[in-house]
């Protein structure tokens, strides 16, 4: 199992144990983590699963794809160097744990 930690603006954290291969978006939506919507079902079409990946995990991620790059340009909360779409980040396969900060707004 792999571990995903979702840090919220109010200081609370949701920690999930999920099957390897699960995306950050799917884990959040399936388990009811607030602040992550996933309106398009995980196809990098809607930018409603925006997360800020904590610095220490960034290097372990595959690079931002072209589609993801464009969608990140229209997130509701400001894009930063730590911005990713949760549907494009999967745990497992060398990424056994990840921590992300959940933005204030997605829509």
């Amino acid at each position, binding site marked *: 199992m792999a571990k995903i930690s979702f840090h919220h603006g109010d200081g609370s954290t949701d920690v999930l144990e999920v099957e390897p291969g699960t995306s950050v978006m799917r884990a959040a939506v*399936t388990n009811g983590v607030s602040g992550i919507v996933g309106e398009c079902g995980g196809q990098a079409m809607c930018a409603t699963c925006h997360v800020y990946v904590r610095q220490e995990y960034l290097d372990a991620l595959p690079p931002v794809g072209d589609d993801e790059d464009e969608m990140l340009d229209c997130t509701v909360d400001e894009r930063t160097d730590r911005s990713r779409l949760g549907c494009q980040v999967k745990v497992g396969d060398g990424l056994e744990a990840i921590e992300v900060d959940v933005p204030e707004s997605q829509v």
Partner: protein
Amino acid sequence: MDTNGNPGQRPAESIVVVGNGQAGIQLADSLRKEGHSGPITVIGEEEHFPYQRPPLSKDYLVAAAGGGAPAPLPLRAGKFFADNDVDSLLGVAVAGIDRAGHTVTLADGTVLGYSKLVLATGAANRGLTVPGAGLAGIHGLRTLADAEAVHAALGTARRVVVIGAGFIGLEFAAAARARGLEVTVLEYAGRPMARALSPAMSEWFAAAHADMGTVLRLGEGIASFQDDGAGHVAAAVSTTGTVYPADLVLAGVGVSPRTELAEAAGLVVENGVAVDASLRTSDPDIYALGDCASYPQAHAGIRLRLESVQNATDQARHLARTLAGTHPDGQQPYADLPWFWSQQGPLKLQIAGLMHPGDETVVRGDPAAGKFSVFCFRRGELTAAESVNQPADHLAARRLLTHKLPLTPEQATDPDFDLKAYSKAVPVPA
């Protein structure tokens, strides 16, 4: 409701939502976010918890090939309903509406009172009526149960015939090709996705599917199916008399809005439950939204019914503000820009706006490289943009159409014109 319209002094109204798809669930969520404190009940016909339908014709069909059916993606986790005090009824249909008494009666005899009723009943697949249409092995694709059956059938099928080259038919065709099956698509119209796409984009997709190995037969509809002698489909016979052997048939021939409740209750129905720009039906206490509703479409200038996630969720957010009395500028008409997407194998199709038949079209980008857009104009004004694997164009077009920023066909085709930067220019207030 008090007469000075102060939302803070409204008594808590009871809202009943018929339908737990994308529109109904988003409405319940947004009602709570907008501060609605009264009871909310969402009624779903299917036994299953509310789930996302779009992946069912795409990723879902190629995931776990050879294994059991994958788990669907929920619209909300189970705890959403408890956390937000939303009553979710599953596996029960609504039998009727008593408008005078402000109640709905469920199929099990339960009677629920409402202050406001919202119809989010969606649409149903049109069935085939040709001889042999009832044979085993002929599937539709809409519900999770449909998708589970199709996923299982793909595991043993070799030859697939798809009836209808719309979004669902072609998404399925690409998934079946990805699983190595022989795929033939029959389409009675002269080009694929004719209702949704410009001829230029439609023709490009016809060639792209041929490149994937799909046989696309245009101008050829379905006439009948042949029985293998044991009640299972053996072949599809087209309107030209051609016989296409098949062990799996997928019918994607469009949908009909679910208007039966509205009709029985005497509401106005006009290609869907007819609503005004505030999404209200001919009964002031009943609203309708999403796939089942036809509304005066601000961008098209005519009454339309749209079938899309964007339409369902944006209308739900709008209606939630209406019902909670929280529109920032008072009551506003629903006027969000329509947009659509389809994923057909490696092809990401995104549409912003509404194309009209006969629009002038120009191409931006390189069709041969599979990354380009078709921009549609009517009397010199941008109406829509269709993009393949070119999300930057799609997002720019959405901004242009939303803010009514002018674009000329010359700018659209000029590779040196920075569309993205231009679309981000602050719109000048009218």
